[in-house]
């Protein structure tokens, strides 16, 4: 059964919320149940932004969970907060460009990749979120990459349209790194 409870977390501008939405849209496109819920508020200002995305074949009860089955951490505070919480057997995607500590968990699959650097190489460090999403999807197989590409096309904002192609590349580059890990 496809079912994944993922937390995306990073600094305000890193696009954790958008990466989460992309996953939610993709889940929906594949007729799965989805919920997306952000943390919000003044603590966001200059602080950390995160969201919880549940994608499931079942109807979703609790949209907020204590222990995610997967986590994507884009910066150090996120790593410190969520690494310990991932359920045994789960997945942790770490942006090593900004996280200089290593996970000590051996009961989860840790995918460590320099997402920001990879993104910068592709033209814009802000695509680190999509790089990490690619890695996550590769690791969980929750949705098809094709679906995610479609959703990128539909939901990238006007201002970002020029970045569509690089984003797709970022997605696959993330996936490739995850595979090679």
């Amino acid at each position: 059964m496809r079912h994944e409870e993922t937390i995306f977390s990073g600094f305000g501008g890193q696009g954790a919320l958008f990466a989460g939405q992309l996953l939610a849209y993709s889940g929906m496109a594949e007729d799965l149940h989805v919920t997306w819920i952000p943390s919000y508020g003044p603590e966001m200002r200059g602080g950390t932004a995160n969201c919880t995305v549940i994608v499931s074949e079942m109807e979703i009860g609790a949209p907020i969970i204590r222990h995610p089955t997967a986590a994507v951490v884009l910066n150090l505070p996120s790593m410190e907060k969520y690494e310990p919480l991932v359920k045994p057997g789960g997945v942790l995607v770490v942006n090593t460009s900004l996280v200089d500590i290593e996970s000590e968990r051996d009961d989860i699959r840790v995918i460590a990749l320099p997402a920001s650097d990879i993104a910068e190489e592709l033209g814009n460090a802000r695509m680190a979120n999509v790089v990490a999403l690619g890695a996550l999807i590769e690791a969980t197989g929750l949705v098809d990459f094709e679906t995610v590409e479609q959703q990128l096309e539909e939901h990238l904002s006007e201002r970002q349209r020029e970045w569509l192609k690089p984003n797709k590349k970022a997605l696959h580059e993330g996936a490739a790194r995850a595979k090679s890990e």
Partner: protein
Amino acid sequence: MAKGMVVIDVDRCKGCGLCTHVCPVDILALSTDSFNAKGYRHVIVTDEEKCIGCASCATICPDVVFTVYRRKRQRKAAAAKA
């Protein structure tokens, strides 16, 4: 020797860049190669010798990053000029 001198509390800086626009001798810039503890590209002094201790940087900085010093002798003269 420089007329003035600034001490920078690097980790208070949020990299807003305001100070870089108001330094009359244009010696403030944002780091391009390092982040501070808060994750910002922080202010740096590019040419310490040029500082005149005018405190413009401190005056505009929203995050109280600067402590500013000036040479004692020249103080009055400088003040008169300002």
